[in-house]
């Protein structure tokens, strides 16, 4: 039984890794590659309905974001620096946009619902003092929104126990109608990123 379990675990990990690799390739081709599936809008179809939980455990859905453009980022509170750095940069860029920037909602979704609770994600988002909305949900709810944005996240067991999460580092930008518009890549320069945000808030 034990051997079966560990084989099963190994298999699950292999599947996750394969999914992550395949997902990575899909994301890349979706945003950069010539093989991107042709869509009428010229943009990959990302986003859609979702339901997560706010700091009080109350439902927070895509409807709550309607009316203002938003920047959506996925990570987890244990993420040592890519997540906080991205959120800090978003807050700084939004500020640089002046009055227009105030329209922009910054949303952080934890893909680690086993450890992060809706309350702890909200408290984490508060640390940035930039009105960032921190959300998470049940593993199923998180899987649904991640799937909608083609976000890759995979648990990776660590040598001394526990796990870290590999995850996408794109910021997803959507208009006030909730429709996906663009991504900010971690490789974008400050000028590129702020240009995308400026365009988003001036639509």
């Amino acid at each position, binding site marked *: 039984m034990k051997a079966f379990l560990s084989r099963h675990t190994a298999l699950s990990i292999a599947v996750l890794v394969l999914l992550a690799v395949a997902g990575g390739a899909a994301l890349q081709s979706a945003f950069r590659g010539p093989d991107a599936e042709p869509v009428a809008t010229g943009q990959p179809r990302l986003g859609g309905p979702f339901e997560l939980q706010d700091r009080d455990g109350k439902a927070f859905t895509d409807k709550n974001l309607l009316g203002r453009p938003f920047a959506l980022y996925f990570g987890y509170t244990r993420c040592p620096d890519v997540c906080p750095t991205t959120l800090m940069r978003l807050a700084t860029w939004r500020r640089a946009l002046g009055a227009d920037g105030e329209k922009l909602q910054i949303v952080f979704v934890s893909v680690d619902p086993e450890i992060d*609770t809706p309350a702890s994600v909200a408290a984490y988002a508060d640390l940035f003092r930039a009105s960032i909305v921190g959300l998470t949900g049940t593993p199923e709810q998180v899987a649904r929104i991640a799937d909608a944005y083609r976000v890759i996240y995979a648990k990776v067991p660590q040598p001394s126990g526990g796990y870290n999460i590999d995850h996408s580092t794109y910021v997803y930008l959507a208009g006030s109608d909730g429709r996906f518009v663009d991504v900010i890549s*971690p490789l974008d320069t400050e000028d590129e990123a702020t240009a995308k945000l400026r365009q988003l808030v001036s639509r």
Partner: protein
Amino acid sequence: MNKNLKNACALSVLAIACLAARTLEVRAAGTETLRIEAPWARETAAGQRDGGGFMTIVNDGAADQLVGASSPASSEVQIHTVQIENGVMRMRELPGGIAVPAAGRVELKPGSLHIMFIKLNQPLKAGEQVPLTLKFRVAGEKTVRLEVRSVAMPPSAMPMATKEMK
């Protein structure tokens, strides 16, 4: 002996003692071939399980290796690295630690090598200090205090909200 002379003597003794102590201190510091510069940690929120720490290890001596770390602030301390491949962040534990080259330096910084406080006993608050003992194969144990820094926007970037800043 009059009172003034007594006082002068006492002062001289004190001065000599101070000088001697200072010399010893300087000597002791002079033999330290490995030192930690600018150690800091990121503040954490209530309920946030783990936290990250950063610093520069400066080594004037022979090649060394950071093999482990511990802190009273968390159940465990791990050594990690981070990579971004195809837009995906991957954080990995480095069970073997970090090599510190002879007469060289290693930077533990955001987006790269860092230490992780696993299962914090309480949140790391900006402005506080968190003790950390680093274990080096050659240099032995070094205890440093990491300055906990805020993740909020720097005051210069948010003049409207300076009142919120500590």
